[in-house]
């Protein structure tokens, strides 16, 4: 093996890697299958998009005119149906003249939620703002004070109800889920069993049946003369349901915290609760942010099931607006698209927020 060393032939320089042309070459036509897929998708969009554009924009009717909508039937969307029905879809059966109240209450609640998610607002004023906004919310919604007309909870509806149900069930389910998750890892057999039974029972039935029980069976079990508002019962049902799923997500995080962390905390003399609060939960929850947000988004959309017990949240009030009106009923599909956009906007912002939380929390793990 005494052959003289021969240098390898020089290779061609790499192709230009910047600019739009290079991007198209590497991302869209990087290989044969990728090129074929690109062309197929472009073809599909070219075939499908013009029709959608025609329907949604070119031939669409934006005026709330039945005649115009009937004329465009089959060729164009009737956005006019939304213009006509938007108050009913958004506010449900809430009395028409009082609808500024749910609007103001919901805007206040949304402002509070946004502030709670923003770093600069994390101070003691936020802690004070919560009870203040909650009191204001219920005062505005139910009335009966400051000369506001009283509105019973079965008239609450639409987007305010959806937002209220999801906010409260998420806010209540989260601490409950943490306790249940801790309970399932407890050294006390009674607590462990209780928590496991709760999770298995609730997870083993559909939310619809939980809501039915909360709405129709629970009153039968109460002593005569005692009644709890149906909204409260339904809220409790959604909370208990969401918490069971969330508890399992949190438990996954708890299991991922190494035992050495708990031993180190114990060796420093921290009590059980101090260890959970300062050491275990911050690490466990940070690891399961995507799963937690998954649960939150599920709960948000699950609120649409309360329609079956005659609470008309966003989805329910869509039915209210279109089902009973023979003239506009054909245009319910446009209504569905409308609430889909609303649901999507909320879910997307939740999911974006969870991404922000993830990057924020991963900082301590950077080297």
């Amino acid at each position, binding site marked *: 093996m005494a052959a003289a060393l021969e240098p390898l032939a020089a290779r061609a320089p790499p192709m230009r890697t910047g600019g739009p042309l290079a991007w198209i070459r590497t991302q869209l036509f990087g290989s044969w299958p990728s090129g074929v897929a690109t062309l197929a998708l472009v073809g599909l969009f070219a075939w499908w998009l013009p029709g959608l554009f025609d329907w949604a924009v070119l031939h669409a009717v934006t005026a709330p005119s039945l005649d115009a909508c009937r004329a465009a039937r089959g060729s164009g969307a009737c956005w006019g149906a939304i213009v006509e029905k938007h108050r009913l879809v958004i506010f449900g059966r809430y009395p028409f003249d009082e609808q500024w109240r749910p609007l103001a209450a919901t805007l206040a609640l949304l402002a509070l939620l946004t502030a709670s998610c923003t770093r600069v607002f994390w101070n003691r004023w936020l802690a004070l703002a919560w009870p203040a906004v909650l009191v204001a919310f219920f005062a505005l919604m139910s009335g009966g004070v400051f000369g506001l007309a009283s509105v019973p909870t079965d008239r609450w509806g639409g987007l305010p109800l959806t937002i209220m149900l999801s906010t409260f069930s998420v806010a209540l389910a989260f601490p409950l889920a943490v306790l249940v998750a801790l309970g399932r890892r407890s050294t006390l057999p009674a607590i462990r069993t209780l928590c496991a039974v709760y999770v298995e029972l609730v997870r083993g039935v559909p939310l619809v049946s939980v809501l039915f029980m909360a709405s129709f069976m629970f009153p039968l079990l109460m002593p005569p003369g005692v009644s709890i508002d149906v909204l409260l019962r339904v809220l409790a049902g959604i909370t208990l349901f969401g918490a069971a799923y969330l508890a399992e997500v949190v438990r996954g995080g708890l299991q991922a915290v*190494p035992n050495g962390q708990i031993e180190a905390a114990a*060796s420093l*003399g921290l009590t059980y609760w101090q260890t959970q609060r300062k050491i275990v939960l911050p690490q466990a929850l940070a690891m399961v942010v995507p799963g937690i947000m998954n649960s939150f988004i599920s709960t948000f959309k699950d609120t649409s099931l309360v329609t079956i017990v005659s609470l008309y949240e966003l989805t329910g009030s869509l039915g209210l607006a279109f089902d009973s009106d023979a003239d506009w009923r054909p245009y319910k599909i446009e209504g569905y698209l409308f609430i889909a956009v609303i649901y999507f906007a909320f879910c997307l912002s939740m999911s974006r927020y969870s991404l922000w939380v993830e990057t924020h929390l991963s900082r301590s793990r*950077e080297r």
Partner: protein
Amino acid sequence: MSDPIVAFEKVNKWYGNRFHVLRDIDLRVARGERIVVCGPSGSGKSTLIRCINGLEEHQQGRLVVDGIELTDDVRSIERVRREVGMVFQQFNLFPHLTVLENLTLAPIWVARMPKKEADERAMQQLRRVRIAEQAHKYPLQLSGGQQQRVAIARALCLTPKIMLFDEPTSALDPEMIKEVLDVMIELAGQGITMLCVTHEMGFARAVADRMIFMDQGQIVEENTPSEFFSHPKSERTRDFLSKILGH
């Protein structure tokens, strides 16, 4: 030996029903004594020192630490832990807290010390282990040796009377072992009671008052380091020493 700070009397422990991990342990540790525990893996040496701060429970016999008998009463365990600091093989620093927060956690939450005082004391301990400039970094940004020094400083923040070391250098790269041992040798010169599970025999020679050799859950041999290394009494000890010193 009058007034031992740690006293094991006929202590027995089993893992599950079958594995007898500590057998009739009798051990008295004097105040300020520095003990090195060695032995093959599975011999029960880690379990022995983990019993001292209640990370493991014994099932038979008496174990008294600084006048407090360890029972299944949570309060006795919490009182003992105030007096005992521990350093682990895997450091076990809290990755979500900065170095300084790792150190001030127990002073603030266990000893109810004002934050300012806890910070000052933590910085003092960090200077002691020569790592004060890293106070505001997160543990995972430090090298293994630095992390273990932070762990030692953390254990010292509550001014314990006893320090337990559970194989403190076993997870370290060779060139980082020395910086940790230097800190431990310095500490040994300051009169604190130390029990150290380690196979660093150079360290043992330098600081130990007494060597303990364990095998199969029993204390096989106890001796001064010089006697222990030059004239081991039992065959088992000779065999073990020839394996770890043989190359």
